[in-house]
């Protein structure tokens, strides 16, 4: 049911959290972290999810891996429907889909050596490997991510932030996955080290044929690494397009504002920016109609009426906005 070159197909994904249970008949408060998100991820491509805090980008990442079962909607991985599978049913599939986390300090167990950390996925997913094979695999992957096999005996605290993120990547690669979900993998790193890790991810993508869902708030990083970019706001996709198309001709007012707000490292081109007013509204009480209308400089009264659908505005370019003149 999905095209053969589609690795991941997400349809109308919703993830709602109940914040307060009904107590003495009080109404339940539902936080719609993700509310109707659809996209396809083609084999070998890097799709980035961009958005500010509270946009739901990380929740999408966790829901597509079925780490948190979605409230509604479907996720297909290859031909398999995975969104209704139990954790036990997911386990054989997990080998092919791995995750890299933001904080390289919190996501590695400080009591374990790198060898233990890296062989854990092998023991779960490839129990047929004997100890020697595991050791070889650990050494091979450490070289792949630019560390030395001698690092296997060390503990996480002996490494710098950039090296720890390499270990996090190595762990994700142990089982030869097809899909990598990377949630802000370079945000905690120093500038000089960030470029090293971006380069490593680009190289690994090519050499291992990885497909990546890259989650980030940093437009410059996303613009550099992605084939396509999806912009999220308050749990919805507002625009999705090829990277060049999105950066050169953004069609949604929020994307335009995000691009304008990103600081540009060129002091000869300072400009007066189109500033968005106010904060992201609380996801507990989003505005009616278009979720962005409360901060939008192009909002019309009609924007409060209905939630705009994601509509195609060009080849591979879709956006959710009723202002056709923009």
């Amino acid at each position, binding site marked *: 049911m999905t095209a053969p070159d589609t690795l991941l197909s997400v349809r109308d994904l919703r993830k709602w959290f109940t914040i307060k249970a009904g107590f003495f008949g009080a109404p339940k408060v539902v936080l719609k972290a993700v509310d109707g998100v659809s996209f396809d991820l083609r084999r070998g491509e890097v799709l980035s999810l961009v958005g500010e805090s509270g946009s739901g980008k990380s929740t999408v990442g966790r829901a597509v891996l079925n780490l948190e079962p979605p409230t509604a909607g479907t996720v297909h991985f290859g031909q398999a429907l995975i969104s209704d599978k139990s954790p036990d049913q997911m386990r054989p599939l997990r080998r092919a889909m791995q995750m890299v986390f933001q904080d390289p300090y919190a996501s590695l167990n400080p009591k374990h050596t790198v060898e233990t950390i890296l062989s854990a996925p092998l023991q779960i997913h490839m129990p047929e490997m004997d100890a020697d094979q595991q050791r070889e695999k650990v050494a091979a992957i450490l070289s792949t991510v630019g560390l030395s096999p001698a690092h296997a005996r060390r503990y996480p605290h002996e490494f710098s932030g950039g090296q720890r993120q390499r270990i996090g990547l190595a762990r994700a690669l142990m089982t030869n996955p097809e899909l990598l979900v990377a949630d802000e993998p370079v945000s905690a790193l120093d500038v000089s080290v960030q470029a090293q890790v971006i380069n490593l991810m680009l190289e690994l993508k090519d050499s291992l044929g990885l497909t990546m869902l890259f989650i980030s708030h940093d437009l410059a*990083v996303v613009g*550099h690494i992605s084939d396509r970019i999806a912009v999220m706001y308050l749990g919805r996709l507002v625009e999705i397009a090829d990277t060049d198309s999105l950066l050169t001709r953004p069609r949604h007012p929020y994307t335009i504002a995000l691009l304008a*707000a990103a600081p540009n490292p060129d002091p000869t081109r300072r400009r007066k920016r189109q500033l968005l007013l106010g904060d992201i509204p609380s996801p507990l009480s989003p505005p009616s109609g278009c979720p962005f209308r409360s901060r939008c400089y192009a909002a019309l009264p009609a924007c409060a009426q209905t939630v705009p659908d994601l509509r195609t505005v060009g080849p591979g370019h879709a956006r959710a906005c009723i202002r056709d003149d923009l």
Partner: protein
Amino acid sequence: MIPVQRPPVLEVENLDIAFNTKSGTIHATREVSFSVRQGETLALVGETSSGKSVTCLGLLGLTPPPPYCQIGGSAKMTTRDGTVHQLIGRPETDLRRLRGAAASVIFQEPMTSLNPVHTVGEQIAEPLRIHRGLSPRAATARALELLDLVRISDPRRRLDNYPHELSGGMRQRVMIAVAIACEPALLIADEPTTALDVTIQAQILELLSDLQRQTDMAMIFITHNLGIVAEIADRVMVMYAGRVVEQGDVVPIFTAPRMPYTRGLLDSLPRLEPGRPRRSLLRAIPGNVPDPTAHPPGCTFGPRCDHFRAGLCDSAIPPLEQTAPGHAARCLRLDAIANAAGVSA
């Protein structure tokens, strides 16, 4: 551009900050010298352990007392009434009179720098009552004006809010209101937008620039984000492993950096301009920031530098050399590198 004749607000010379720890003395900064003039923004740029934050903490006496931390050098601050104060070695009681009145700080994380058990209004009024001796009523009235000045919507209601009731951007606005309450001559902003979303970051940067224009305060802006530096700085000071490695006006720093580290930082940035090659490898700086307890001999950037020459760069620490009026860089091979790049030295 800022005319050169503006009076300096802060003049720092040879600031050395050293921490005595169980595993020996760690030199957090060495020979840091700079000045900031009225109405000017100096951006202090650097990565982890470059010494950029500790420089400012040390100046304001916010580092631990001796013997845990030793501070050497001199720092002269001129307040708005023209009085000159020496900050280094000053007793805590004197510094306390200056902090929050003549010089204020905004930190990165507004949630941890605001007191969770006091209302926003109380926290803005506090420096006004302490430093200016305002009555509670007058201080609250001024707090209301300040909330309006930092463009918080519905300021009257916000006075009675607690920090947890505000968003991150609003908390940072409150922090700014507290910091500027006594119209300081110097505002130090230590990564004030790092915890914020980009659209909120843009609002805060705009607000700080506007406030600076209105009050003519000097600003030291500490950040690792070169995009922000390009947006707001008049002058830039790049630090690496506790030393100033390059300083100058913002445009030459970005268009013609002299120290290989500065150039490396700029080259390693992914950029948004259309037409840039995408999905290509970035020119990353190899290696990692050195461990503060084990600096390499000679130039601390040497082991990561493309232009490293054994026997030269690892033999002595290069001096900070003037390369043009108002521009200095710390590298022994400045001329060789400039010639190789076809730039006139």
